[in-house]
């Protein structure tokens, strides 16, 4: 047989086996399906949580108050200088009047206390964001020693607790996703091996009539791959479509935490790569492994 007809033969046999082993194929495809569905769902949640934590930490900023007698121009000049620093993403200058208005809004019911001031008693403020939110405290310390700067409010304890929270949650999330990934991989290859295990006598017979190992292996590999692909397509379609619908409905309403969802196209593409990749890889692996153990006849 030439190469081409061999390949065709093994493909044909693999397909046939899938059909012939009705119940067993069905059982393993559905096991792969639900496993990947849970994995996919988790990945969707994790990707969005990741985006969310990024968004939250991006809100972190440093407030620097200049000396009470520093002018707005001085503020602008300092801002200009800060903007050129490598760690700093943005600097916003808040004039004395703007600061006053903000304070009035903020302190609602104490407004009358502030009303008595004709001109603002507040200094010029600079609102600074670090490029890397985790470097915020470092930036604050640098700013603290700048000329004309009086006090710097870096919300140290808030930032620390925020980052600690985010990092604990992220660690839990990553551990969980990895645990689930490993589990799915184990379950899928295990299922495929069980599917093929029930045919060990057939493998024995094939060997006894003179089939070479690879000749036996290929159809099983094709079969494992098909189980993997079939098992990946269903959750992919359901999750992809479901996410698309949810995304379309709510992605532009500022959500409860005013955070946007990961765009549906990008997410579905990633999901497809992961689910199909795992399905195919483990199908092939399951096929190879399960046959291996029975080839020693």
């Amino acid at each position, binding site marked *: 047989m030439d190469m081409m007809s061999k390949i065709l033969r093994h493909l044909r046999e693999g397909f046939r086996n899938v059909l012939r082993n009705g119940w067993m194929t069905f059982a393993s495809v559905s096991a792969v399906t639900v496993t990947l569905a849970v994995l996919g769902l988790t990945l969707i949640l994790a990707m969005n949580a990741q985006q969310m934590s990024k968004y939250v930490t991006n809100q972190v900023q440093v407030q620097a108050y200049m000396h009470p007698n520093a002018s707005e121009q001085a503020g602008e000049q300092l801002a200009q200088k800060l903007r050129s620093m490598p760690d700093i993403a943005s600097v916003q200058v808040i004039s004395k009047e703007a600061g006053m208005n903000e304070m009035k809004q903020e302190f609602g019911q104490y407004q009358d206390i502030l009303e008595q001031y004709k001109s603002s008693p507040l200094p010029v403020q600079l609102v600074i964001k670090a490029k890397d939110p985790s470097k915020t405290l470092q930036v604050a310390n640098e700013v603290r020693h700048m000329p004309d700067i009086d006090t710097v409010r870096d919300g140290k304890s808030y930032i620390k607790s925020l980052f600690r929270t985010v990092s604990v949650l992220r660690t839990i999330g990553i551990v969980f996703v990895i645990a689930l990934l490993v589990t799915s991989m184990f379950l899928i290859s295990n299922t495929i091996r069980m599917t093929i295990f029930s045919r060990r006598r057939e493998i024995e017979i094939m060997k006894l009539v003179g089939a070479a190992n690879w000749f036996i292996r290929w159809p099983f590999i094709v079969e494992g791959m098909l189980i993997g692909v079939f098992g990946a397509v269903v959750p992919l379609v359901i999750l992809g479509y479901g996410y698309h619908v949810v995304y379309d409905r709510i992605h532009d309403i500022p959500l409860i935490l005013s955070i946007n969802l990961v765009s549906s196209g990008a997410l579905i593409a990633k999901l497809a790569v992961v689910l199909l990749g795992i399905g195919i890889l483990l199908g092939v692996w399951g096929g190879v492994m399960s046959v291996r153990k029975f080839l020693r*006849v």
Partner: protein
Amino acid sequence: MIEMQDVWKEYPNGTSALNGISVHIQKGEFVYVVGPSGAGKSTFIKLMYREVRPTKGHIFVNGFNIERLKDRKIPLLRRSIGVVFQDFKLLPKLTAAENVAFALEVIGLSQRQIRRRVEDVLTQVGLEDKMNMLPSQLSGGEQQRVAVARSLANNPAVIIADEPTGNLDPDTSWGIMRLFQRINDRGTTIVMATHNRDIVNSLRRRVIAIEQGIIVRDEQKGLYGYDE
């Protein structure tokens, strides 16, 4: 063609199946292996295509040194031998035709050649009507004939048959024997374990009698020889 030198076989559970067997079978010979149930006939036969490995001794089949045979080469040995297994060993999910075809696919024939040859051998064993049946849809004797057809299919140099007529009526058995004889006339070596006294006594060939794991008799044109 087939040479055994002081071969012993003890199974892992401690059963001694063969206790020092030496035998030389020439190319083109027709050999009956006879003996009581549990004597070691099947073990003797299984050694030839390396389903079991000897505990001691040397075996050469078709130029292959069975002890030294690399795993990669085992398929080559087995393709040079057509085996009718005592328990048939048909693939349960393949039809009669596909079972025979499988033995031809492994040697790499083209689909067209395979189809022709499959039809040919299944007709020779009288199963032209049952080609597309699964083993589970065949009678015991029909399954045995599929196994016979498969063993012939790729024109092997040696045919080894373990009680190939055990499930067949005398008429059909004789049909199979005539087939083996024709193939033997063309130069194929045939080794056949059997309990069929009529066949052995009518179609006189070399008889190797095994009892309790040793060869107790080895005669040219022998008789079955177990008469009350």
